[in-house]
């Protein structure tokens, strides 16, 4: 990795709330993280933990109403080298950033493309918008982009409609569209969740290849820890709208400092752990309980009701995000004890 550690995007104390009929949903409640140039940052967490809302906040695509960014700043350094706070930009300035400086890929390749325009048109639209090219030139770019993402016969495919393509191909089209203006930051919101493992492998492979070609940063959102392990440089773990742990990917996997992260890691069956025939089967170590109701989060640590390490102090106040050393942060009052536990385990 050849980046100088220059920060591309810095999110500080972001709060995005939704006002619904039942009350205010604090989907993102004081999230802070940053991405450096050329880096891949993975955001993991259960469904509803606020991953998508965070990424949409960065794009300023939160549906308003009911959503609103209530607090915080999103500092972004665009292609022009100027740092801006996305929260305060005008809609027109924001439009210049979207698709140009920051692009986004969504989870559902089947529904994220407009069914009535050809994929070429849809890619070309971004190109025409941001690079001032005419329709023909833009279509050429689109064809090139399709070739770039490995779609065979791009000259033909460019004139096809989304429904004529499989899920994997559509996701490639989405990527082509996102990369067509060579953005500095690519936000990928669960880009492979809807795909088969074999197709997922293709797409992840492609993204890695493209990143090294284009040199962009990626904000990679997923709940698949396997994918995180493969893709990320650093990881942010979210729970109940807050960051509960942040750190280098190896650290997170090898030495988690938050019970939620640990639970998550224990929940996944690892390939190769299958029992021998005739042997008793092993058990997964599941996190008990359910994802909390976003309208009714516990007053203290959001994970407290499901945490096997919970102590009375946990429910008193929201724990602070503390640095456990070399940029590894945890939002658990007992993080120090885990260091010990792990040390024992490794021993």
């Amino acid at each position, binding site marked *: 990795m050849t980046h100088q550690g220059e920060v591309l995007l810095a999110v500080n104390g972001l709060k995005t709330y939704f006002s619904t009929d039942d009350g205010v949903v604090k989907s993102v409640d004081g999230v802070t993280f940053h991405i450096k140039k050329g880096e891949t940052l993975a955001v993991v967490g259960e469904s509803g933990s606020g991953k998508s809302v965070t990424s949409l906040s960065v794009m300023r695509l939160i549906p308003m109403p009911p959503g609103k960014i209530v607090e915080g700043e999103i500092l972004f350094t665009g292609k022009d080298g100027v740092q801006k706070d996305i929260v305060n930009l005008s809609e027109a300035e924001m*439009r210049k950033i979207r698709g140009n400086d920051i692009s986004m890929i969504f989870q559902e390749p089947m529904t994220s493309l407009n069914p009535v325009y050809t994929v070429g048109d849809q890619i070309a639209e971004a190109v025409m918008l941001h690079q001032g090219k005419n329709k023909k030139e833009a279509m050429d770019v689109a064809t090139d982009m399709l070739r770039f993402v490995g779609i065979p016969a791009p000259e033909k495919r460019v004139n096809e409609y989304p429904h004529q393509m499989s899920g994997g191909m559509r996701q490639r089209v989405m990527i082509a569209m996102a990369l067509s203006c060579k953005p500095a930051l690519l936000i990928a919101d669960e880009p492979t969740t809807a795909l088969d493992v074999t197709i997922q492998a293709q797409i992840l492979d492609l993204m890695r290849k493209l990143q090294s070609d284009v040199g962009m940063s990626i904000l990679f959102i997923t709940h698949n820890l396997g994918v995180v392990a493969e893709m990320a440089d650093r990881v942010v773990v979210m729970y109940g709208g807050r960051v509960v742990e942040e750190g280098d990917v190896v650290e997170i996997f090898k030495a988690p400092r938050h019970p939620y992260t640990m639970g998550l890691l224990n929940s996944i069956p690892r390939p190769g752990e299958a029992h021998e025939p005739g042997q008793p089967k092993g058990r997964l170590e599941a996190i008990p309980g359910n994802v909390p109701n976003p309208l009714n989060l516990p007053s203290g640590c959001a994970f407290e009701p499901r945490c096997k390490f919970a102590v009375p102090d946990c429910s008193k106040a929201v724990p602070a995000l503390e640095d456990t050393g070399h940029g590894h942060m945890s939002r658990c009052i007992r993080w120090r004890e885990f260091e010990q536990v792990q040390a024992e385990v490794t021993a």
Partner: protein
Amino acid sequence: MIPFLLRRVIQSIPTLFLASILIFFVIQLAPGDFLTPAKLNPGISQQQLDNLSAAFGLDRSPIEQYLLWMKNMIFNGDFGLSFQYQQPVLNIIWPRILNSLWLVLLYTALFYAIAIPVGVYGAVRQNSLGDKAINVVLYFLLGFPSFFLALIVIYLILKLRNATGWDIPINGMTSQGFDSMAPLAQVLDVAKHLLIPALVLAISDAAGLTRVIRGQMLEVMRSDYIRTARAKGVSERTAIWKHTFRNAILPIVAGIGGLLPAAVSGAGFIEVVYAYPGITPMILDAINAQDLYLIAGFTVITTVLLVVGNALSDILLAVVDPRIKVG
């Protein structure tokens, strides 16, 4: 495309057949016949009534009449002779259908011209004051029986005429002395006459469509691909008109084929109220007079058009929506 159309034709044969039987026998079932009113004429003798009955073939059994009619239709392509007009049905209704067509065309244009912008506005500014105000007006219009609306409009026009002296036409399709006008003046004259009924109809009907469009727009605006478009940095206008609108109107575009029979069956009540020489007054008249073949013939034509219109709808849908294939 061709096999699709062929299949449609084959499938529609039983429908047409059933419809023709139904309509024919329903007319036959109705009490009395074309000659009933003549019976009340103190001057017409029984002898004369018998003569007329024979002349119109009304003395034969309904089944015989139906078979003759069918035979005529299949082999001669003619829909029978109108009792009232003593002419082939097609000749009589064709000019009326044409008249209706003008009205319906203008109506359709106005209908969409009103409903689309208002519906889109309602969706884009959902729950704004303007949206709410429009909604209230729409609810009101939806509740208005169109003939009631028409009556009030006629009255207002009359008042306006008296107040301003403008020559606003109250009814009909052309002015006195139309035949001696220059061609351009003729067109303008007809347009002048069409405007009010078309507008009244369009406004009262647009309420429904407006709400459909609003709902559709809201639905599409929530979809993932609109978010994708916004993520590309397109302007609000592009997001709405290029991406949302095109998808939102798919079901409406598909319904346009269904307008065909509607176009031909005329604009209904409004034609009666404004004494517009469209097809509706003629058919109502024919129903009252029990002009058997005129009604039956007309129904067959509209049924055929319905079938054609449905096929057309499907083709149109395939044209506007690349996901759908005809075949």
